[in-house]
């Protein structure tokens, strides 16, 4: 978008307007930018730039940016279907406790220590839940979702309105998916999803190389558990889009299934967990292979 001196096109102008919104303008603008930054950060962390080591400094900076956004979202209180913008304080103002004291070398959270990883993961999945649901509740003054990630999520929801929450992430961590969208503990961790992707990728590297490896900064402590139980269900039990994918090769079948799970999970959150645990019949699941490819391209930022 900012490139080799080319003339800007109209949609870039709009986008630049969004990006350059001052923080104390409309909360919508701030929310949109925050969402964009969140999505970009996640994309960056999950992409693998080439064969050489991507660099620790960059990963640390992106992860810290992500954590700041998580802190903000956590500080704003309850997750999903809060009518926007109902938070008391104007969103442009940073919570006082997050300003760094001048004499402190390392940024501290309000509790005086770094965010424990377990809390971090709670919030990451929370963010992923938030994305589709917030995108469904369009902010009042904006009628166009400008960010590609959010729009892709919106597309997914449009296509799969009734898909329920997958059974994929049940029990192993002692968590079950209930229909209460406001309870953070009931939702599986993003890390589990990541480790799910990782474990599958270890099985078919070629097809799944786009997923890269989970950054070492973010744990996948459930990897072992996930490997031994969820893989089976992932590969063999899940046939939500069986009819459309049965003709594809083994590798792409795995890919499609994983993407499919991602899709289902996202949509599940988007629905606020209203559907029951059992998957609906295949007939209602209308995504075909082309759309899955499109989603994958968006997700990995190719």
């Amino acid at each position, binding site marked *: 978008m900012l490139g080799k001196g080319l003339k800007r096109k109209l949609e870039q102008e709009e986008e630049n307007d969004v990006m350059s919104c001052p923080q104390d303008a409309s909360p919508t603008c701030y929310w949109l930018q925050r969402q964009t930054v969140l999505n*970009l950060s996640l994309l960056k962390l999950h992409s693998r730039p080439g064969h050489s080591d991507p660099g620790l400094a960059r990963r640390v900076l992106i992860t810290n940016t992500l954590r700041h956004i998580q802190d903000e979202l956590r500080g704003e209180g309850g997750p999903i279907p809060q009518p926007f913008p109902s938070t008391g304080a104007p969103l442009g103002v940073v919570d006082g406790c997050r300003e760094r004291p001048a004499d402190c070398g390392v940024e501290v959270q309000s509790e005086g220590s770094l965010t424990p990883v377990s809390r971090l993961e709670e919030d990451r999945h929370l963010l992923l839940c938030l994305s589709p649901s917030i995108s469904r509740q369009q902010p009042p003054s904006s009628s166009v979702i400008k960010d590609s990630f959010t729009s892709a999520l919106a597309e997914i929801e449009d296509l799969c309105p009734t898909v329920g929450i997958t059974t994929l992430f049940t029990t192993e961590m002692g968590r079950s998916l209930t229909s209460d969208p406001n309870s953070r503990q009931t939702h599986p961790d993003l890390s589990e999803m990541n480790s799910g992707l990782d474990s599958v990728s270890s099985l078919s590297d070629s097809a799944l190389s786009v997923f890269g490896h989970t950054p070492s900064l973010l744990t996948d402590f459930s990897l072992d558990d996930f490997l031994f139980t969820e893989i089976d269900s992932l590969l063999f039990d899940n046939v939500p889009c069986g009819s459309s994918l049965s003709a594809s090769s083994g590798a792409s079948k795995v890919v499609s299934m994983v993407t499919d799970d991602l899709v289902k999970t996202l949509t599940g959150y988007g629905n606020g967990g209203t559907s029951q645990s059992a998957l609906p019949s295949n007939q209602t699941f209308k995504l075909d292979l082309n759309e899955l490819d499109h989603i994958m391209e968006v997700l990995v930022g190719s």
Partner: protein
Amino acid sequence: MMAGVGGGNDFQWCFSQVKGAIDEDVAEADIISTVEFNYSGELLATGDKGGRVVIFQREQESKNRLLSRGEYNVYSTFQSHEPEFDYLKSLEIEEKINKIRWLPQQNAAHFLLSANDKTIKLWKISERDKRAEGYNLKDEDGRLRDPFRITTLRVPVLMPMDLMVEASPRRIFANAHTYHINSISVNSDYETYLSADDLRINLWHLEITDRSFNIVDIKPANMEELTEVITAAECHPHQCNVFVYSSSKGTIRLCDMRAAALCDRHSKFFEEPEDPSSRSFFSEIISSISDVKFSHSGRYMMTRDYLSVKVWDLNMENRPVETYQVHEYLRSKLCSLYENDCIFDKFECCWNGSDSAIMTGSYNNFFRMFDRNTRRDITLEASRENSKPRAMLKPRKVCTGGKRKKDEISVDSLDFNKKILHTAWHPKENVIAVAATNNLYIFQDKVN
């Protein structure tokens, strides 16, 4: 026309030379990754992404050419580092030269340190302009002579030959860095030097390659708790026990090696309190310091973060004494710059010989100079269009909004692929070297 920066009111910067290929297609390996003058300014070294080092030497000023100072011509070219493969991690180790630092000259030969991500090498560059002739045991072409045919002995004679410049690796300092080396710095004792990666700083003796002392280690026991990395480090120019290192959170720590073997605890801690009104999602990223340089006097140090250059007095830790905005117009574009990764670009900065001016690079092949005394600043461009010999450089201006005047360029027309990350200033004169992707520009002041 703005009065010049860097040396007085009659000062103008002029084009002197440009090195490198002209065509638009830039080979990745030719991208210059570091530029450094030696202590006298007679030699100028560049390193590139292909692992090569090219050294330019200034020709002696001849009495005939009064209008320009000596030009820099290629003196030596050699392959310093080769790509390697880390089998344990299945990752390539790039051959890109991250830093070159010269050693002070102690004899006829020149020595420099060059570092890629993992390995530092000490190179000796020496001249050979004589050749021995008249050996007894072998012919001129090197074949051994039959000993029974030797009837007389003669002493070999040194005969002049065409100048040959040889570069040979004298020391290889390897296997000491788990993370990517971002800095090397020669100590003022001329016996030791430090090398810094993302999490550790090591102290080496120039003669000893099989071990180094770890003097800073910020790696946490649990890597998930890592929130800050080391971004640059430098030895004090006069006090051989003092060094500084900067971090990704915009802080600088000054350490004294006499205090403890492990300098995890700093002697001084430099940080400017954050301005809450300018806080954004990118505040931390743009506060990350990409370069730190002591002034020649040793009283000040300069840090470069994404949008500004700051000069710190070593005696004052709570804020810099001077702050210069490099390209503040980018503040509203940070989200886009985050998307295209430009926000992670690491710009360097440098002092002039008298510490009265500082220079740093920007985008669109612009570079900026700030005069500390007059508080004037100037933006210049390194481009082939201004490359007539001794052509004066015209100041450039970026239009930030509203009506664009003639000769101004608007923010959205800037080419973010043309970035000037590496610049160097001659230690004594007003001659600067600016690396623009694969081209090296040399500018000097107009000699009146």
